[in-house]
């Protein structure tokens, strides 16, 4: 059922569009490792890759769709989720994955995020959170911590950030987790779990942005941020999402926060169709 290449030297390569390398991501960026985890998750779950569709919006993370050898869609800024909704409902056999960034999914696409979770559309969202807008040069975003410096908050961020897992859980998602790219094994397992679970699954992935956020906040190289993840991360599966906000200098709570069974949009829709056709 799977189309992986078992004898390949590096099995991930079979899933990459090698003719598109080198990619655009900076040295030390966390998006690449998250893509690797996504690919290994497909292999781990032995999913039929021909039936997976990958949708991205705009931004650094939005480039992921272009590098992974799946049916892939690089859409408009913020609109990956509604595009993915149409794709999934157009062909419910597809395993639909949205891979994009925090600015794309949580800011400009924020309304689509809560409504997709509310409907419990059967899809997996991998949301890379690098705490700023990378592609455009490191501006403040809806996840930027208070007081952090960005190219549009030179004197420190004065806006409260979102606690993303909390909103998504409150909106009705079936599965909510957060990992950092340092937690490669857990992230891989989590993506595999999300992709095989019916309903709306959301995984926030903390990822370093050494070129912009890291530099402006004196965090050093990508590896230094990985050390911060190592020091500050606390695995707390089952934590109440309202308690997992990312605050300056506080622990980064990671783990699986929500894993519930709730009828999906499609479950409810097909029931309605039966009813309509009986009447």
């Amino acid at each position: 059922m799977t189309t992986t290449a078992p004898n390949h030297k590096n099995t991930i390569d079979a899933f990459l569009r090698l003719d598109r390398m080198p990619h655009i991501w900076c040295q030390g960026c966390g998006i690449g490792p998250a893509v690797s985890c996504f690919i290994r998750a497909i292999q781990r779950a032995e999913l039929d890759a021909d039936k997976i569709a990958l949708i991205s919006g705009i931004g650094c993370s939005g480039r992921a769709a272009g590098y992974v050898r799946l049916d892939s869609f690089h859409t408009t800024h913020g609109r990956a989720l509604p595009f993915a909704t149409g794709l999934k409902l157009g062909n419910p056999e597809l395993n639909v994955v949205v891979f994009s960034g925090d600015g794309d999914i949580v800011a400009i696409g924020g309304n689509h995020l809560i409504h997709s979770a509310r409907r419990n559309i059967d899809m997996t969202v991998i949301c890379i959170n690098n705490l700023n807008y990378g592609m455009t040069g490191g501006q403040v975003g809806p996840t930027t911590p208070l007081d952090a410096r960005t190219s549009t908050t030179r004197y420190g961020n004065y806006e409260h950030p979102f606690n993303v897992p909390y909103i998504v859980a409150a909106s009705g998602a079936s599965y909510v987790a957060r990992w950092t790219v340092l937690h490669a094994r857990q992230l891989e397992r989590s993506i595999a779990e999300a992709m095989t679970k019916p309903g709306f699954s959301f995984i926030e992935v903390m990822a370093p942005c050494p070129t912009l956020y890291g530099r402006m906040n004196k965090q050093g190289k990508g590896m230094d941020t990985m050390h911060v993840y190592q020091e500050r991360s606390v695995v707390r599966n089952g934590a109440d999402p309202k308690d997992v906000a990312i605050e300056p200098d506080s622990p980064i709570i990671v783990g699986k926060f929500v894993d519930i069974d709730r009828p999906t949009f499609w479950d409810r829709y097909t029931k309605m169709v039966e009813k309509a056709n009986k009447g």
Partner: protein
Amino acid sequence: MSEDGKLTGTFFMNGDTACAEGAIAAGCRFFAGYPITPATEVAERMSERLPHVGGVYIQMEDEIASMAAVLGASWAGKKAMTSTSGPGFSLMMENLGLGVMLETPCVLVNIQRAGPSTGLPTLSGQGDMMQARWGSHGSYEIIALAPSSPQEIFDLTIEAFNLSEKYRVPVLIMSDESVGHMSEKVVVNEIPRGHLVKRRRPAKKPGEYLPYEADSSLVPPMAVAGEGYRFHVTGLTHDEKGYPVMTAEAQDKLVRRLVDKIRLNRKDIVRYEEIGIEDAEVVVCAYGITSRIARMAVQQARDSGIKAGLLRLITVWPFAEDRIRELADRVKAFVVPEINYGQIVFEVERCAAGKAKSILVPHMGGSVHLPQTIVKAIEEAVR
């Protein structure tokens, strides 16, 4: 209605409902929309009908999402549609551009009301005609149809799906509140075999297929998700593989093809109806609800001895420029009534190129022209 949900017969139906029925008849099996006056009845009818024909109706959180979902469904292989009016049409412009760039067949219905902004939500307008042509950023061509009756909105919705599948472009139905909300006789016949255009599918195998490799038709065959092609598509400027290429050369090649596939095929696409054109000295050029009043005005002018004719635009985009040029060589003037303060008249003027006068008969919206207003303009044109 038959067991499989097919509807045939003669009905008394409003334009919005007829539009939905046209979509069902055309094989549309996905609708995403957001309620807005005066287009809501299209969505309501689709929500009622689609469950009976194996289709999906979803009410999205806004019109941005509606248009995005329609594109997604089309890439899953479904014929997909949305409907809206002015404010929602503005929101759809973003993903209309994506639809053009990804070459996604779909239909977008605009039951126009009077603007700008919230304007007159329940009353007629034709103020979005230029937005239909230029509303999304960048250079592109679009197809837009302007039905003038419930029967025609039914027929043209089928036509819209055919054109969108053939040319891989979103097709707009630019109707108006008057047509959307008027009820008239609508005859729904069984669609003749072979009438519905099937999407051109890739002849090449996965690995060999290039998503944007086009032959002389300029329209590439289209794979959809889940078939094993593992294709990539992007709103970025791209090459035949679908890969982004950030050069002026790639941009030139792509944009030329996107525009030319419509522009060079306009003889196949452009549709209009003519009445009393043969000996006409003055031609009234009108579309949508206004064309019906124009027809009365032309008849009245004829009755009073003026050689007037009607050119009723059925496709508004691409524009019937070849026909206007021909007519401009032999008529005195074009009279252009429209429910806006001048949009299509500028196209007429451009094509007439000074050889014939172009006279706007504007209406700011909220109702329709009186026939005598148009008659007066015809009289002045021949004076």
